């Protein structure tokens, strides 16, 4: 049935494969690539700040991380060096890793730049201590760069060699903990053009690119050593980047769910007919002073606040299922969570479950609202967190009547996805000034071309 549906949908999809390389040591230092089995010896706390892009602008994804105001804690292991903790400039690039990347580029019939420029890709979510990921373009796709699949050719866009990010350990109340042993492992990234026409083709491409990478004999194996990002949009929707799909079998589900999500959002937009007014945010803490809801009661008791927004005409829509297992209400909750709060409560939920019926009745009365028309969404949290989160939720609701937003999402284990941050722009790249460009010698390249594995 789905096939038939996809047959009529104009879907655009490309994937990126990230594969860790097994080349002895990290990309920009001599530390081992294996994850440490020892206990951390030290922790370092840092904050990230907004930076200007090369062209003078600020990347939206970068600005977003600053707005969140988080602090980052890094676990330092006996094997960790100062390059990983951003206490020393990078060492020259790992030549073995570069060689594998160049081989893959040649196997894909890519053009290799005469000079490879190491770039800094701004990353302010703390997953890189420096505030950027070092990455370099080693292969540019040509007309002859493609993967054959049962559903046609899928062209290769580009091939990059980059550093793996630090592994996230936990995130609690504005503090994110990362381990530094994963940071800096060489990673090869192959990106395809948006030639993929169906979820099953997406999976086939990922599988074939995985084989190609393994044929070099220089890739790591095991959980987490390969992951896919999926870029997907449907006609009338928007480009969404879904990060970190580790299970090949999930690719199809994720693609299907994303198509369904965007289509459903387009349906909602159509239903709303181009207008949706959002009132608030209001500070309604007082209304909840005598609440029977323990969760909210204890939040207020510990100095927290309850903030609310009213979405005119949204009643009923919040329980619409965007894709299996994901209602619009849950989707909005992801925006709140991405801004550091635990979640939200809305009037399409079973308010009795939360013992909140009376409190919401009072709200409808106080703001003279129509229960059959106006949806209320509340967030109970520490004031700064609640303010950030409710604003994010309000802006997202406003977009419901306008468009499907472009954004970065992350894959959940059930094949659904959740919002993480805005889509980064081109301004997040600037040159790595601590290392000179790498000049690629033609003779070396010819010699390499003669040593390629059968693909």
């Amino acid at each position, binding site marked *: 049935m789905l096939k038939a549906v996809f047959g009529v949908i104009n879907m655009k999809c490309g994937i990126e494969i990230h594969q860790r390389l097994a080349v002895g040591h990290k990309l920009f230092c001599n530390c081992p690539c294996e994850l440490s089995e020892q206990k951390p010896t030290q922790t*370092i*706390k*840092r*904050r*990230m*700040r*907004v*930076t*200007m892009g*090369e*062209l*003078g*602008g600020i990347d939206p994804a*970068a600005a977003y991380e600053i707005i969140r105001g988080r602090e980052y804690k890094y676990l330092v292991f006996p094997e960790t060096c*100062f390059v990983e*903790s*951003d*206490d*020393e*400039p990078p060492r020259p690039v790992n030549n073995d890793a570069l060689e594998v990347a160049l081989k893959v580029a040649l196997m894909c019939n890519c*053009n290799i*730049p*005469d*000079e*490879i*420029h190491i*770039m800094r*890709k*701004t*990353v*302010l979510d703390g997953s890189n*201590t*420096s*505030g*950027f990921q070092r*990455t*370099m*373009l080693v292969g*540019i796709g*040509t007309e002859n760069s493609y993967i054959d699949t049962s559903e046609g050719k899928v062209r290769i866009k*580009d091939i*990059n060699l980059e550093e793996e990010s630090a592994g996230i350990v936990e995130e609690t109340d504005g503090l994110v903990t990362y381990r530094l042993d994963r940071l800096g492992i060489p990673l090869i990234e192959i990106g395809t053009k948006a030639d993929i026409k169906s979820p099953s083709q997406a999976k086939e491409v990922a599988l074939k690119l995985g084989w190609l990478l393994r044929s070099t004999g220089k890739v790591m194996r095991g959980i987490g050593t390969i992951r896919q990002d999926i870029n997907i949009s449907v006609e009338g929707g928007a480009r969404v980047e879904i990060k970190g799909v580790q299970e090949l079998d999930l690719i199809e589900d994720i693609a299907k769910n994303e198509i369904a999500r965007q289509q459903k959002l387009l349906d909602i937009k159509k239903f709303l007919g181009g207008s949706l007014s959002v009132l608030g945010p209001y500070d309604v803490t007082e209304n909840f002073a005598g609440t029977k809801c323990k969760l909210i009661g204890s939040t207020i008791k510990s100095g927290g606040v309850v903030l609310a927004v009213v979405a005119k005409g949204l009643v009923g829509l919040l329980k619409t299922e965007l894709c299996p297992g994901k209602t619009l209400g849950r989707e909005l909750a992801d925006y709140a969570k991405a801004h550091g709060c635990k979640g939200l409560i809305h009037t399409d939920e079973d308010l009795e479950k939360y013992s909140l019926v009376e409190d919401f009745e009072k709200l409808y009365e106080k703001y003279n609202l129509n229960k059959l028309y106006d949806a209320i969404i509340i967030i109970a949290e520490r004031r700064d967190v609640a303010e950030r989160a409710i604003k994010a939720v309000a802006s997202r609701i406003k977009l419901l009547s306008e468009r499907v937003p472009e954004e970065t999402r992350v894959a959940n284990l059930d094949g659904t996805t959740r919002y993480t941050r805005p889509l980064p722009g*081109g*301004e*997040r*790249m*600037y*040159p790595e*000034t601590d290392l*000179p*460009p790498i*000049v690629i010698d033609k003779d070396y390249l010819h010699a390499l071309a003669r040593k390629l594995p059968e693909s």
Partner: protein
Amino acid sequence: MAKAKDSGYSERLVRALSHGRIEIGQRVRIEKAGCVLEGILMPRIEAGDRDCLIIKLDSGYNVGIRFEAGTKISKALTPEVKRIEAESKIELGKIKESFLKFEWDPTKPKVSLIATGGTIASRVDYKTGGVYMLMRPEEFLYNVPELREIVNITEIINPFNKASEDMDSDDWKVIAKTTSKSKNPVIITHGTDTLHFTAAALSFMLRSKSEKWDETHTLPLPVVLVGAQRSSDRGSSDAALNLICASRIAVSKISALAQVGICMHASESDEKCYFIRGTRVRKMHTSRRDTFRPIGELPIAEVWPDGKILVHEEKGERKGGAMIADTKFDKKVAILKAYPGSEPRMLRFLVKEGYNGIIIEGTGFGHVPTFAKKSWIDEISRAIKSGLFIGITSQTIYGRTNPYVYRNLRILNECGAVHLEDMLTEVAYVKLGYVLGHTKKFEKVKEVMLKPLAGEITRCSRQFLV
């Protein structure tokens, strides 16, 4: 938009670009060996091949494409042209002017800022591929909006922009004079390599107006030197915490903080800073954020970004009155290092060149090769007899020199060389220039060199390695 001739490319390439009326920052199309690329033409960095065009692709990546026979370059005419060209009208790498218009809160305490260059004022340089030192102070302040909650920076003085390794005593004089003119506490941003030399120079050159040049110096206000180990264009820059903490020191009324000191990271974490005395501080690591360490004493204070200050030094009330800059300085001073096999005739060269004072960084307690084949003793005696002052410090960095413990030390002492207690070599060098700038009389020079003017000699050697 930059012209092709200023782009750093080879003459051949500049001709090709001029011929196609192509300027740096424009969107171009390159065809080479069947491959077509479009992107923004970037200026050539000095490193690498000058025949190689640098193109910023839409993905943000820069790639180098060698301009060879058959390579075609032309203006691109794809739909993206408008958007990207509009963006590149701003000079590459510069912050949009509109970003820099911010106002200080007049209710906050007034502070003057003197910006002298260094990593803290640096950002990417597209020409050299290195770090660019000509950032305007407003640009790096822009990155730290929290400062507006702490200080009212009433004036930003930018006497020069230099890497600190390029500075000398003339620059210290300029900074001292500029500082002395301020009626408010002063924050000085500076490169880190020789920040401790400047800190020492200001410690000696600045004092309250009522004091004499050879007496203990006090200041009416804090003079806070601050730098960064990671340039301000990085998300992980240490500049913000350093500036915030420096501002906290500057506006504090705690009397012990009215002195010259360096305020930078206390550890690798963005947690707190140390405010370290200008004469007991040294750069101890090439790249770590906590590179500046107090040597042989605790920092004057520990300071947190929220304004908490833990002071380790008791001091009476702050003196009022004006601050003066006494910048007399004798440039004919030098540092020599004595080590196994070192050449003592270097002293002879300095004598011949008219030097008036030398700091010899000896081994251990302040030894020089004494009975070695290349003994320094004769050369030192000769130099002292010809009128030079010779001060001895130790290359152990930590600990006090001693003129008596070993026979070799006594021999050196008998020549007339003066062991300078636990004064740091760099500080001794700066102090000697200051003292010789005021007097050439050997006994007076010796007396003042051994007398702490700004905490450069500790009274007791206490138990701390920080």
